[in-house]
């Protein structure tokens, strides 16, 4: 196919509607940045849940040999099978508990090691004589509560049992963190939604104007037998260029957010939480669900363009 005309038209089209295209690009850019931040916050919530559990979970660490808690419950060293049976029965009988899972020493160790690697702090796990080993890692129960407010009964019952080292209960702190994340996530998505709708309207207007400006050419192209795709191509390319610029700007803003906002600021000051990394950034760009901005941007400009040009350019 001879595309010279298409590219000439693309250039004149972009120039002719420069202000419209700038408006589309800016709106798209801001909305995609917001959408991307929403995705990162969602990923952050997942990362935090994976490592700390959520506001419904408490972690019951069992005794190891030479337990660092020096609790009297651990006088007999590594937790025994009998002690575990008592603990399990207590958990099962509690009406505050929805469910529980046992996490072996190996599983717990592996999970901690993976997380340490994620934040590049795995030094304690490695070397000829590592500080952290499978032997020293406690087995544990993850106890899921029915409601985050009621756990006093089960906690006080377990605290006194032989074989229970420490109970990690971060419901309050986590509840607040997840609350903030939820607000941030939906806030940025709602903002992104409104702006994306605005972008959609602008794309529609741009096409209407472009079709009007080109109506003579379009009439002749139809008459001499140009294919519908060929006639629509300059419109589609214009939309694609706008989308690519919008996506590139948003990707830059998200990268800056990840670099300076997360890694240089938050991660240094808030160490008890694991933070999103560049893998999550990639998800925000290329993910399928929720759709990353690389998908979202072109979809938002190309789909309305296709629908509208079908209307204006119909043979």
């Amino acid at each position: 196919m001879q595309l010279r005309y298409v590219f000439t038209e693309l250039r004149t089209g972009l120039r002719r509607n420069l202000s419209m295209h700038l408006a589309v690009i800016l709106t798209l850019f801001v909305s995609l940045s917001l959408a991307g931040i929403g995705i990162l916050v969602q990923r952050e919530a997942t990362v935090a849940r994976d490592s700390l559990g959520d506001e419904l979970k408490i972690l019951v660490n069992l005794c190891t040999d030479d337990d660092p808690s020096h609790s009297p419950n651990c006088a007999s060293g590594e937790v025994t099978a009998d002690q575990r049976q008592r603990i399990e029965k207590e958990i099962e009988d509690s009406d505050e508990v929805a469910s529980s899972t046992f996490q072996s020493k190996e599983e717990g160790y592996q999970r901690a090691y993976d997380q340490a690697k994620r934040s590049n702090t795995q030094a304690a796990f490695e070397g000829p004589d590592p500080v952290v080993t499978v032997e020293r890692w406690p087995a544990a129960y993850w106890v899921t509560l029915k409601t985050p407010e009621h756990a006093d009964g089960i906690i006080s019952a377990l605290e006194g049992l032989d074989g229970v080292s420490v109970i990690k209960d971060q419901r309050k702190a986590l509840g607040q963190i997840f609350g903030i994340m939820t607000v941030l996530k939906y806030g940025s998505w709602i903002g992104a939604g409104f702006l994306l709708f605005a972008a959609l309207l602008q794309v529609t207007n741009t096409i209407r104007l472009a079709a009007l400006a080109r109506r003579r050419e379009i009439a002749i192209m139809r008459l001499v037998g140009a294919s519908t795709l060929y006639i629509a191509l300059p419109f589609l390319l214009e939309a694609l260029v706008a989308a690519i610029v919008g996506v590139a700007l948003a990707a830059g803003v998200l990268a800056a957010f990840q670099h300076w906002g997360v890694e240089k600021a938050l991660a240094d000051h808030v160490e008890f939480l694991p933070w999103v990394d560049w893998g999550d950034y990639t998800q925000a760009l290329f993910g399928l669900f929720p759709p990353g901005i690389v998908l979202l941007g072109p979809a938002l400009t190309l789909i309305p363009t296709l629908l509208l040009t079908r209307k204006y350019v119909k043979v």
Partner: protein
Amino acid sequence: MIRFEKVTKRYPGPGRPALDQVTLDIDKGEFVYLVGTSGSGKSTALRLVLRELRPTTGRVHVAGKEINRMAGWKVPRLRREIGTVFQDFRLLPNKTVTENVAFAQQVIGKSRRDIAKVVPETLELVGLKDKGDRMPDELSGGEQQRVAIARAFVNRPMILIADEPTGNLDPQTSVGIMNLLGDINATGTTVVMATHDHGIVDQFTKRVIELDHGKVVRDEASGSYGFQH
């Protein structure tokens, strides 16, 4: 080449149909006038051939294909076999003569080499060899119509459709345009020309199909415009 079988075309709204049970048959290489008063249905018949419109009932065949049942994506191929000329020329004002003619080739994907060869040939054929670099508004009406004919003919279509091509031109210029259409017809191209220009029809005697209120009232192999007008 073109066959209408009991074609009726009704536009939305009340009133009689624009075409009413029209049956006609035009062979390859013929030159046919479609005559009749304004509103008799000439343009509607031509637009049916281009499949800009579909008949309400009846069938339209072009080049052996029943085009009213043709899939939409095939319509561009059909139109490449038909050149079209209008009363108002419809040139692109911001392109030169050469660019206007080349446009018809570019947008159907002809190669640059083909275009560079065929466009000057076609401009020579219509007598505008030296005016390729002019803009349309620097040309007379007759010259503009020649550019439009060059554009319609540059892809060497099987059929040339002309809707009142001399409607905006003085009689002397019209004669030049008619000679040109005659030359194109002589290359084997079927020409269908809608007109209500008596002088032309009587001077260049061809087959005449007369429409009146959407009905064919006359079809003469070698007719005049008709004394009743």
